[in-house]
């Protein structure tokens, strides 16, 4: 049997400045619903998606709430770039996601190179 291709979704953007963050999440959920569960890496401004947020004030749906569904869709570990967190002064207890394990990535380069396909959002 052919080995399944490994897939990484890289989330690089803050949640509300642009629709790309939501598009990325929807792509991940769609992949997972089709039994192609990707690994997910939050890097650069993408780590900001993990902060508690209350976007009712700007009439948007809560992206972090949607992210919390990832473990239900089979994405049980969220990979997070350590340097991106540190640059933004975010500590691990700011981004705890119930039901998901957080895995810090120290060297994103070799981590990314280990996948067959990378989607970038």
């Amino acid at each position, binding site marked *: 049997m052919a080995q399944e291709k490994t897939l990484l979704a890289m989330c*690089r953007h803050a949640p509300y400045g642009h629709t790309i963050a939501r598009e990325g999440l929807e792509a991940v959920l769609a992949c997972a619903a089709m039994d192609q569960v990707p690994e997910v890496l939050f*890097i650069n401004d993408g780590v900001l998606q993990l902060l508690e947020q209350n976007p009712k004030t700007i009439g948007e749906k809560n992206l972090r709430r949607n992210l919390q569904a990832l473990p239900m869709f089979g994405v049980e570990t969220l990979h997070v770039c350590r340097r991106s967190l540190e640059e933004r002064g975010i500590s691990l207890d700011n981004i705890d996601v119930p039901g998901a394990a957080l895995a810090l990535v120290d*060297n994103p*380069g070799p981590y*990314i*190179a280990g*996948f*067959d396909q*990378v989607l*970038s959002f």
Partner: protein
Amino acid sequence: MTLHIVSQSPFSGSALKDCLSAFADGDALLLIEDAVYAAKGQTITQLKGKSVYCLEPDAVARGISIDPAIEAIDETRWVSLCTEHNPIVSWFR
């Protein structure tokens, strides 16, 4: 080995910087569209020691002369770069 493709000017956004901080040994970088503005001037110093390619038609179109440290390529070479590397990561925003 990853092929990183950047399309954003290094002066308008963080895509090139973000890409370089996720660069592994042996990876290659291709500058296309507005990222060709990184192919001359001071940005070159950040690219030292890496395999860097620049899409020549995009540079010519923008009046940018590609630094000799960077390999100018055409679209056919772009295709072969894509077949030689895996995965391919776009840094378009």
